[in-house]
């Protein structure tokens, strides 16, 4: 999620969009399951994408599919979107008017999906059954398992500055590919389940990882080496990680019973910023590319909130009852 923010900002700057005087330009989506109201049922009340409207309300967008976890837009065609879901990858090429599932029965439980901005025809996905790669913009997919010790993965990022450089968060640490997910090699990361990877737009070598039970980890060399980042969350399950696209010094992590923790100095020091949130269970964090310094946080079923002062105060952002998997800012609709 953070990587998408970063890439979009870079693109926006390149295109001169950042100088446009208009209000927010991004399309802001939440990938959620409405689990709060799920009683005596194995399925949530609703599941899919919600699109934030100008008035701050959220409206359904796209197909209602169980287990929708993320969304990504083609770097060369904003009308082409790839949706990650339990049913597989679902693609639109007309901005959401029509959708097509582009995976077969073999693919399920897609947890994260990215385009390779340095090679826009390439896209990659992390699924609970192993990673996938596409070389035709998500129109078709191939299994991409070579070199992996275990297949489970739920987070993936692609280096915006280096085509084919992909990092995958697995149940056995972080794996790296230099050939567009054809082959993978283990990085010097602990043998722990990696729950979220984020990269910096301002400093492409800066990466942040949230893990299961081992807290946050930072890499300052594009994923070759990693160090534990925050003693205050060292044993936490961190589902959320984000780096501001405006300033590589601003980092945030969030997780179960740890709330939100932020760093304003590139990860040297961290502070608890949970006060003001209704719950300490945070699954997604996202810096807003349109409002400098705005941080979004989505709690487990207790709503989504934003802060304009790096978490010192929080404001209601809606989506009460949601179990959010991703908050996604995409370029404006064509």
């Amino acid at each position, binding site marked *: 999620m953070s990587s998408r923010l970063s890439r979009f900002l870079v693109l926006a700057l390149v295109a001169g969009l950042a100088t446009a005087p208009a209000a927010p330009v991004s399309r802001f989506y939440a990938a959620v399951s409405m*689990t709060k109201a*799920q*009683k*005596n*049922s*194995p*399925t949530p009340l609703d*599941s899919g994408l919600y699109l934030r409207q100008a008035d701050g309300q959220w409206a359904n967008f796209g*197909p*209602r*599919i*169980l*287990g929708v976890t993320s969304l990504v837009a083609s770097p060369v065609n904003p009308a082409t979107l790839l949706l990650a*879901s*339990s*049913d597989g990858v*679902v693609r639109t090429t007309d901005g959401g008017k*029509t*959708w*097509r*599932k582009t995976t*077969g*029965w073999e693919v*399920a*439980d897609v*947890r994260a999906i990215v385009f390779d901005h340095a090679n826009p025809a390439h896209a990659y996905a992390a699924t*609970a*059954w*192993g990673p996938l790669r596409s070389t035709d913009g998500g129109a078709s997919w191939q*299994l991409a*398992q070579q070199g992996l010790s*275990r*297949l*489970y993965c*739920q987070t993936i990022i692609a280096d915006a500055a280096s085509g084919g450089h992909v990092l995958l968060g697995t*149940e056995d640490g972080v794996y790296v590919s230099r050939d567009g997910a054809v082959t993978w090699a283990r990085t010097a990361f602990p043998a722990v*389940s990696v*729950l979220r990877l984020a990269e910096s737009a301002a400093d492409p070598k800066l990466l942040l990882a949230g893990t*299961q039970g081992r807290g946050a980890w930072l890499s300052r060399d594009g994923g070759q080496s990693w160090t534990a980042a925050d003693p205050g969350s060292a044993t936490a*399950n961190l*589902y959320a990680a984000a780096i501001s696209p405006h300033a590589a010094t601003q980092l945030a992590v969030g997780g*179960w*019973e740890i709330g939100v923790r932020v760093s304003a100095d590139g990860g040297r020091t961290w502070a608890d910023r949970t006060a003001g949130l209704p719950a300490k*269970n945070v*699954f997604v964090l996202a810096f807003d590319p349109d409002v400098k310094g705005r941080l979004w946080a989505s709690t*487990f079923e207790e709503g989504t909130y934003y802060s304009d002062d790096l978490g010192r105060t929080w404001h209601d952002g809606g989506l009460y009852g949601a*179990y959010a998997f991703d908050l996604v800012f995409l370029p404006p609709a064509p």
Partner: protein
Amino acid sequence: MVLVLMLSVGALFAREGEKGVLLSDADITRRFEERRQSVIASSIAALDPADLTKGGHYDVAACLQRGEKREAALARLAKILAVKADGNMFWMFPMVTLMMAGDQGLDDPSRARFAELWRTYWPSRGDTENHWVLYYSSLYLAAQTYPGAGPEKWFNGKSSAENMAESRSYLEHWLEVTTSFGQGEYDSPNYLEEYATGLALLSGWAQDAAFRQRAHLMLDYIFYDYAVETLDGYYGGAHSRVYPRQIIAPGLTPSMALGWLLFGFGERQPNGTVQILALSGYTPPPILERIARDRAQPYVERELKRTRWRLRNAGPESFVIGDKRTIPVYKYSYVDQDFILGSTQGGLLQPIQQQTWNLIWRTDRPAAKAANTFFGVQPYSSPLEGTMFFGADWDTVTNLIARSKADYDTPDKLPSGSPFEQVYQHGPALVALYDIPPGTRFPLVTMFFSRDLTHTEEDASGWIFAQGGPVYIAYRPFAAGEWKPNDWTGLLAHGAGGFISTDFAKWGSGHRCYVSPALKNGYVVQVAPARAFASYEAFKAAVRALPLTFSTATQPEATFTSLDGTVIHARYGATPTVNGQPVDFASWPLFESPFGHATRGSQQLEIAHGAERLLLDFTHNVRQESAVPAQP
């Protein structure tokens, strides 16, 4: 499709079964057809032209198939189709049943509405094996209905041809894995109906004759799997998935309803799959009823199954099929005319609803009231299990499971697998060992004592004796416990869990559990038919005299000489031995008993009864009946 009928064998082996049931091919087929027709007739009768708020999908389908009450059926159908589509894969197969069975009776508006629904409603595929079989069998047939339809006609943007190809590819994969390595969601008294539904639809209405044949073969296959472990329709042996009501009242299961239609056991119970099967025209091969009823001699049924795919935390014992990880499940059932004692090896074999071992006995009580079962459980719940089998997150998975399986995270749960449980059975004797780490959420070993048990006695010898109908039971706990009412948290009694605890007062009350908190634990169970002893006292005396040594000081361990003289030795973490020989799990067969044989990886099942043979050969898509001379 190739059908080789070497001989009409059934007539050769016609004889009277128990309770005077005639077992010739002709009699079996006639009785089945009578039941099938009665299902359809009652379905038609259920639709009331004067009250179109009543009548289910299959009632409408029956009317349309038979050309009866057509106007009322179409009017009722219009109401059904006007309801907002919901339920994902569980929405699909009722629609397809209407489309297939009712095809000749549909009118243009209903056909148009079906097409509109398939274009606009996205039914998710779900995440279990039965979900996928239902989803793809339904999608295959729905797509078959619209040949040449392009992507714009379908919810998922794929053409009819693409949907059919994807569906068939998955179903062929499922057939191959199941007939080679065993079913993942194996032997479930509940989910048997889901597999029967999907396969019945394909068997009845797939236009491709070869594919229709494969579905028919697979129906025979799963019904054999049931027939060989049933006692009067009750599904015996270990189960992959069973709900609280079903584990206590084994007669309140879809498999019992199917047992009535397929083999004539018990009374008819309302059941949608029974209706679908009846409409599909499927007729089980008569050999299956002969097997289901033949309990003249006790036998051992061994089966190889597999766990549901383990997506993470798979463990070092896991192996790979394709690119999915699983571990083998070694099923063992001892089938007697009066009882079935069945087990698996223990461990985490399925998420949520596993029953590692159980005993059922023959009963004359009505199925709705019978609680003819005895079993033990280590009530376990953890994110480790949840994340092993589900794609959910560590900190939410248990919570989300309990949204629909309310008992999952309670200490008085009855269905459960446990990584701290190891079970070994030989004949009608069973040894269970437990090594529960400190800090485990529910550090208990629970033994369920049904209200149907009589003469329960705590003997000074340490054995606890009981009688279940015509069966004597001896249970020797290795650590002390206390008696508690079942459902001691009151969760189910107070309605949590929705349909799983409906009518709790009827099936859930009056039972009790023997609950032991010892972490290092175990027990022996010895079962015997009452007919084998002069009296209950004689049974107890015989059991008291059996050599038994056990230890729970370090690794739980027991050596037990059973009533038939077999010496079973089990040590936690080690391979058990029988009469000094290690159990050979490596060569465990896919199916093996006097009634059937299948080797691992074969994709073939040879079903046998006397000299009669039925070969289900998936490699050649052949169903071959034959009779071979009886061995001298």
